[in-house]
């Protein structure tokens, strides 16, 4: 609710021409993300070639016929990038939703109920949080086998502690606030306190965490894919295509690696800029000095 009202408020200001905090970042982020998302959504309509079908035109440099050139199998790289975006977004979306769906409720309950279980959970989450994310994802993906679903699960495990920590901390603070104490004093049921008094106040923080986390998990997905844990040929995926282009690098076929990488970076940067802007917009108190 709070978020909705704030966003409406800012949209009104946008119409009246007044600025709002983080405007530049939000516009830049959306400016990158909207075209990228449209491209991947419309891939079946705008993709000029079948991304998995080879041809005789192998290792062609970028040209009007093949915007981003072709690879060693004669596949059109532009089409592969359009379709590959769908794999990246699927893995990232599924994993982010999974980790939020586990991390947020755990953090809420742990922070609100407190006690020994809370301390134990916090310690476990902190230990996992300190573990290098990509290495943990590699370990999981290696014993699960390469597939889109397994990769999403592996990435989800990596980010559960982030959501847990970002929910538990503020929950602890809110629990000590006067209005929650007042609600407890009037005998409001725990469920109501958590859902009506605590969760809505976490929404701004969680929106920012969700966006920035997506930016990070795009890079983790690309890393896993680059190492061969997400898709198997001929499925297109940006990280995997980058890896497939590596053997041709010493011979100077620059387009095989340049384009997939640029798209990974753009997608991640888009979410990063948006998260940065949302952070300024939704938590005005924590403005960067």
């Amino acid at each position: 609710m709070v978020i909705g009202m704030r966003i409406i408020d800012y949209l009104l200001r946008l119409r009246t021409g007044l600025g709002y905090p983080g405007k530049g970042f939000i516009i830049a982020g959306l400016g990158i993300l909207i075209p990228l998302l449209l491209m991947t959504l419309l891939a079946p309509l705008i993709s000029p070639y079948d991304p998995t079908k080879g041809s005789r035109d192998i290792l062609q440099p970028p040209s009007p016929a093949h915007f981003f050139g072709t690879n060693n199998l004669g596949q059109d790289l532009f089409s592969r990038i359009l379709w590959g975006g769908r794999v990246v977004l699927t893995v990232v979306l599924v994993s982010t939703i999974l980790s939020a769906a586990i991390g947020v409720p755990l953090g809420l309950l742990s922070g609100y109920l407190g006690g020994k279980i809370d301390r134990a959970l916090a310690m476990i989450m902190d230990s996992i949080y300190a573990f290098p994310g990509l290495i943990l994802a590699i370990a999981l993906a290696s014993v699960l086998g390469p597939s889109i679903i397994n990769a999403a699960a592996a990435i989800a495990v990596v980010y559960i502690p982030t959501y847990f920590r970002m929910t538990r901390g503020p929950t602890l603070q809110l629990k000590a606030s006067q209005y929650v104490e007042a609600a407890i004093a009037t005998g409001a049921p725990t469920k109501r306190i958590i859902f009506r008094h605590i969760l809505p106040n976490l929404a701004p923080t969680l929106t920012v965490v969700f966006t920035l986390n997506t930016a990070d998990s795009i890079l983790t997905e690309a890393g896993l894919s680059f190492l061969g844990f997400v898709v198997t040929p001929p499925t297109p995926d940006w990280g995997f295509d980058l890896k497939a282009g590596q053997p041709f690098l010493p011979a100077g076929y620059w387009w095989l690696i340049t384009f997939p990488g640029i798209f990974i970076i753009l997608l991640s940067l888009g979410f990063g800029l948006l998260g940065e802007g949302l952070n300024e917009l939704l938590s005005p108190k924590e403005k960067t000095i």
Partner: protein
Amino acid sequence: MGLGRFIAVRALLMIPTVLILLTFVFFVMRIIPGDPILAMVGMKAPPQRIEELRHMAGLDKPPYIQYIEYLWNVLHGDLGRSMIWGRRPVINEIMDRFPATLELTISAFTVSVLIGLLTGSMAALRKGSKTDTAMRLYGLIAWTLFIPWFGMMLQIVFGVWLHWLPIAGRIDPDLAPPRITGLYVLDSILTGRWDSLVSAIRYLILPSITLGVVLSGAYTRLVRNNLVEVFGQDYMTTYRAMGLPPKSLLRKALRNAFIPLITMMGLQFAILLAGAVLTETTFSWPGMGTFLLERIIYVDYTTVQGTIVFFALFVALINFIVDIIYAIIDPRVRY
């Protein structure tokens, strides 16, 4: 609390952390996958071979016995034996590869801190200016530069087109110095082999810049924010009123802005290790990352598990050391 007592307490606190990590790794590697060997081999291998591998990895015993054996062995420094070739102890194999990763991470870490200090100071000195915004954008973009892509771009420009630097490996094969520490740069200096030193440094440049630049983004922001805060303190106003030149002001401010940076270093180190895996793969750097991936392909399950355990223990140790350094520099932490 004295420093000695602080270290002792902090060391005791490491026990539950290490136990949690070990249990977590066991859970991830053995319980979640159901049958890790089958997943790693893929469906291709004959059932006999899978059975054999399962036996070698000790996966045919009941899980709780596996767990107890595993904890017992790890606590004795035994990470098991490799399942391929000479069945060497995993810890020996890791020690062969570890110095390469250490050399890369130390060098990349230095690059990232230097860039972070430079860009962060530039932004803080011109707070609110275009330089400040540019540095903030640099911080964001550097962090999203996908390591393999950035590394390959450097390889194409400086290796393939300009022929300035080598793009794969750690040193010219016939120039490897005799092993003392395993760090080629250090070993070359210790044995006085200058041609080895030059070769080792030439091979180290591109991987270090790749990893260093990507990690510098976080430092840019931290250094900037810390410096801006320190510049606003009363004692800095006093220094300014005393007429200290900008250079000495910056030096004084940096010293104070550095303390919060140290707390971040434990976490940064974990990110550094994860980044090292991708950097090593990109540059065929013979460290822990390439080692781990190689053994995953060979379905050397015990080695894979041992390497993950090693990473976990290493990170716990680094966090312990960072805490102690912090307590030495800032005595308030001890209370």
